[in-house]
């Protein structure tokens, strides 16, 4: 089977597994919306202020809760499935790509869902909102790749559920800055091309790193 078919098959089944589990839709997303709800309660109801900081809060929620989305793979599928796929002849790079793509789609759905919640709760003033069509996928792609790499690095470890966020969040700082600054740029009418390019560079670097390390990480199975 060529690499592309393997990726498509693996992704389809992984995604189906996740969607049936429903963790993203029924746990992570509501949790994120609750977080969006608590912040005005903590800082007070100041509508202009909330309008101004809404996009920033949105992105930091996406980063922090997106880690939970990226983690779902390693927590859901039992380690034995990895051995099974290896013996069935699945390419490590195909597995990296499939897991990343599945997570990417879930993250994108999470971003859209949390985005609507932010619109409703904070009423941010965004003029050129169609730029989000580029911004959301670029951010989701970067975060899903960091998550998959970190998940593979920490696979088989007892402490992985607490370890993965500590590894992912600092490395994802450029994604957060790029996304938040681009949104800020949209708000005040400044240029955002620089930030989009930054996100594209982060994504490309991570894709190369993911492909180059996939086999090596799989061989070091515990």
């Amino acid at each position, binding site marked *: 089977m060529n690499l592309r078919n393997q990726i498509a098959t693996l992704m389809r089944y992984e995604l189906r*597994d996740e969607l049936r589990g429903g963790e993203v839709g029924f746990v992570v997303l509501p949790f994120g919306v609750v977080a969006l709800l608590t912040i005005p309660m903590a800082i007070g109801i100041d509508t202009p202020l909330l309008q101004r900081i809404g996009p920033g809060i949105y992105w930091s929620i996406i980063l922090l809760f997106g880690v939970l989305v990226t983690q779902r793979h390693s927590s859901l599928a*039992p380690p034995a499935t990895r051995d099974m796929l290896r013996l069935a002849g699945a390419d490590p790079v195909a597995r990296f790509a499939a897991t990343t793509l599945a997570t990417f789609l879930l993250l994108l759905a999470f971003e859209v869902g949390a985005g609507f919640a932010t619109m409703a709760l904070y009423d941010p003033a965004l003029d050129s909102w169609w730029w989000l069509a580029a911004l959301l996928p670029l951010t989701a792609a970067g975060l899903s790749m960091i998550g998959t790499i970190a998940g593979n690095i920490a696979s088989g470890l007892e402490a992985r559920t607490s370890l993965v966020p500590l590894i992912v969040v600092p490395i994802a700082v450029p994604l957060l800055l790029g996304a938040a600054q681009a949104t800020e740029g949209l708000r005040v009418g400044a240029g955002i091309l620089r930030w989009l390019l930054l996100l594209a560079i982060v994504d490309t670097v991570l894709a190369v790193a993911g492909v180059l390390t996939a086999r090596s990480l799989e061989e070091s199975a515990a």
Partner: protein
Amino acid sequence: MTSPTVSLRSVAVRKPGSLILRSVDLDLAPGSATALFGANGSGKTTLLRVVATLLRPSSGSGVVLGADLGTAAVDGVRRRIGLVGHEPALYPNLTLGENLELAASIALGRPATAEAQDALQQVGLAGAADRRASRSSNGMRRRIEFARLLILAPDLLLLDEAHVGLDPEAWLLVGHLIEEVTGRGGSALIVAHEEERIRPLVDGAVTLGDGVITGHQE
């Protein structure tokens, strides 16, 4: 005489704080089935993972299906190894049928719906194909893994206490699988504790203890 399917020489596996395998020599002849006995915690599962090319030995050498362990050549033979481990290798939220299709599609390199249907029929799960893996009994999950092996048709069959929780009918399935593999010139290695039950199915047995193979029985 043909070369053995598996040939290990002084294989050792070290883990922090203990030596799991000290020095294992093991040969599996083509067309033979071998039982692997040993007390709890004696390293049977580890040995099976080494033979399955999933775990690289800390030292020693080995050849599995003609590929030297620890070289890139094992990538080429992995597909010919069938393993049923302790833990079920199933995605919990996929149905039994979907789990089987996923494994079969990857292994065959094309959508394998027809093969999966066939195999489900053979292991007697045609009626339970739409049941989620997480809601299936231990025995049903085992049967799905046997169905996978029917499709994969491995040349090296490795069963790690795969008989646990099986009813007598499913037990016949294990015998059939072993016969099929040995019949086409492959080898089987079966980890088990119940000697009386396993005996009729195998040609010989080895015992693992203190990190070495301590006993051979024909």
